[in-house]
């Protein structure tokens, strides 16, 4: 099977920094995967996702995408990509509905489709009762859910999720994970980062561990745990990256 994303030798050096944030990273992600990227703070996870979503430019290296057998470059892939950043990225002054209508329209969806998709997402994420309330009045969990909904409004084929469940209560987390599982069942590729390693262990089909801008290892969770003779992802991470603080 051709990878949906093929990363070749990506290096990213910020400004005058001497050490690269990403150092010659190569990776393949396949269609329909729930792919997790993990590592300590500063490992390069967000930088890698930002490059894959057109937010940052790589200093060197290439990324190629392949949707339905058609090879695409970064600019071409954007309509098929959903991005759910770790920081909230919406207009707090607008209502949930207005936010979704705007971002749907910005992707070029027709008004009818935007409306039906908005209703569907608001209902799935339990936000239908607050659809006409300003997002600034939402709780943390509700904001996290609308942040996710915006990334999914245009029915993307690849979704990048940077800490999609950070700072939310258990109920919100369950709703979010359930929605992501449903999307994945429909064939949507999910690329996911999180500090909740227990959650990631259950959720991801394959993971990459990163440290100091490099990919340390890539495989399924089961294989990695077995190979390294550890009980869970947390132990694996400590084993492979050490205990020293990274802040």
């Amino acid at each position, binding site marked *: 099977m051709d990878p949906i994303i093929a990363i070749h030798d990506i290096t990213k050096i910020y400004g005058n920094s001497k050490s690269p944030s990403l150092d010659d990273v190569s990776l393949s992600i396949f269609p329909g995967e729930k792919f997790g990227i993990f590592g300590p703070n500063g490992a390069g996870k967000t930088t890698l996702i930002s490059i894959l979503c057109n*937010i940052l430019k790589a200093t060197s290296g290439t990324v190629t995408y392949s949707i339905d057998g058609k090879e695409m470059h970064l600019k071409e892939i954007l309509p098929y990509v959903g991005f759910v*950043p770790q920081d909230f990225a*919406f207009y707090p002054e607008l209502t949930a509905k207005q936010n979704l209508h705007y971002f749907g329209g910005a992707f070029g969806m027709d008004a009818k489709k935007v409306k039906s998709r908005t209703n569907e997402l608001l209902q799935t994420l339990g936000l239908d009762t607050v659809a006409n309330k300003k997002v600034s009045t939402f709780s943390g969990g509700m904001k996290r859910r609308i942040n996710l909904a915006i990334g999914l409004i245009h029915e993307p084929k690849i979704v990048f999720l940077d800490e999609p469940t950070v700072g939310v209560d258990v109920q919100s987390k369950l709703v979010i994970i359930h929605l992501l599982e449903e999307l994945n069942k429909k064939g949507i590729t999910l690329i996911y980062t999180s500090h909740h390693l227990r959650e990631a262990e259950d959720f991801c089909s394959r993971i990459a561990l990163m440290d100091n801008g490099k990919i340390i290892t890539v495989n399924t969770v089961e294989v990695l745990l077995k190979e390294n003779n550890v009980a869970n992802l947390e132990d694996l991470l400590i084993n492979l990256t050490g205990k020293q603080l990274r802040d």
Partner: protein
Amino acid sequence: MKKLLVSLKKELLLLMSDKVGLLLMYLMPLLLVFIITLVQDSAFKLVNENRLELLIINDDKGAMGDSLINRLKLSGNFAIEIDDNLSINRLKKETLDRKKLMSIYIPVNFSKGIQSNSAKISNLMLTEFGVVDSTSQTKNKKALKNAQIDLFFDPILQENFRLSIMTGINTIISGLENQDMMEQLFRDMGYDKIPDHIRKELIAKQAPINPVPAVEGEGASVPNSSQHNVPAWSLFAMFFMVISLGGNIVKERLSGSFIRLQTIPSAFLLTIWSKIIVYLFVALTQLTIMFMIGIFVFPYIELPQLELPSSIWPVITISVLSAIAAISYSLLIGVYAKTQEQANGFGAISIIIFAAIGGIWVPSFVMPEYMQQLGKISPLHWCIEGYYTLFLKNGAWSELTGSLIFLTLFILGCQFFTYLKLRVQNYI
């Protein structure tokens, strides 16, 4: 096109939700224009139309003190209260207690002083003409001090008003002195008094002053406070959009909305264009409302009516360029500021400085030369120059060249540096 409409709708919704920004952009110019025009118009009327309340103590033993008071009354500029029971020592306090802006003390020797001077000058003139022998001049006449009155004023009275009023009173005293000198001259030549026909001629009006604005074309009206203030304060408020637009950009950047827009094809540029279009609409509606108020509302509150120039296209051109200059500056501030506080603080202060050096608050011509030169870096200077050329000087296209060139360069400069920053940050 569909994407642009969606983006425009979003920008309008964001604008509508920014109540403080809307108040600053629409209410502030209204208040400024009303207040400043009323204040300037009142100041004008205080000196020229309203009667200034004046408290007078007349201790003069002769007739000149009374004549001075009569002439002050006849001038129509003063509402006079005479209180000869007061002493000069109490006049300062009474001036403030009775809420008079000014008071006058006419001293005991006021008439004598004027008459003494008249006699001296008359004698000198007659000697010069050879009518009187120099040896027959009154030699032993004791020289009196020049006639002098004391003018007390409330310290709140600004110097320019005080000087203007003093000039008016001086003119009246000069008239008195001239008349007395002529009478003395006639008396020295053996007349009892000035013959009536000569007196009439002497009293005949002064040569009138006809104010004519130095403008091109016929039928230009005399500029009034509305012609100055409506365009000036509308521009000031228009540039204050930096608070709303600049702050709005910083907020979007910090809230992560811009990052999400980077992942949507062409959405970022459309957002910038939508902002430009929405704020152009805001700026032009600001101007339209202000001009409408100047034309239709001002006459009802006894303020001079704003008169639009005969040719409307140059007004539209300068208005659109001024609006785009304000928008471009706001974009620049929004893109470079690191926080909303920085955008608001720097934006507001820079606009106040641009307005001050640009001639919005006080005309550029009253500033020192180096300030006038410095003022030329202010976009507001070129905007107001354009409006003054049209509203006050009845100017033509050719006279707008300076404003048009500078504003175009300013817009291009701001847009270039905005583009540069966005490019470096990979937004576009």
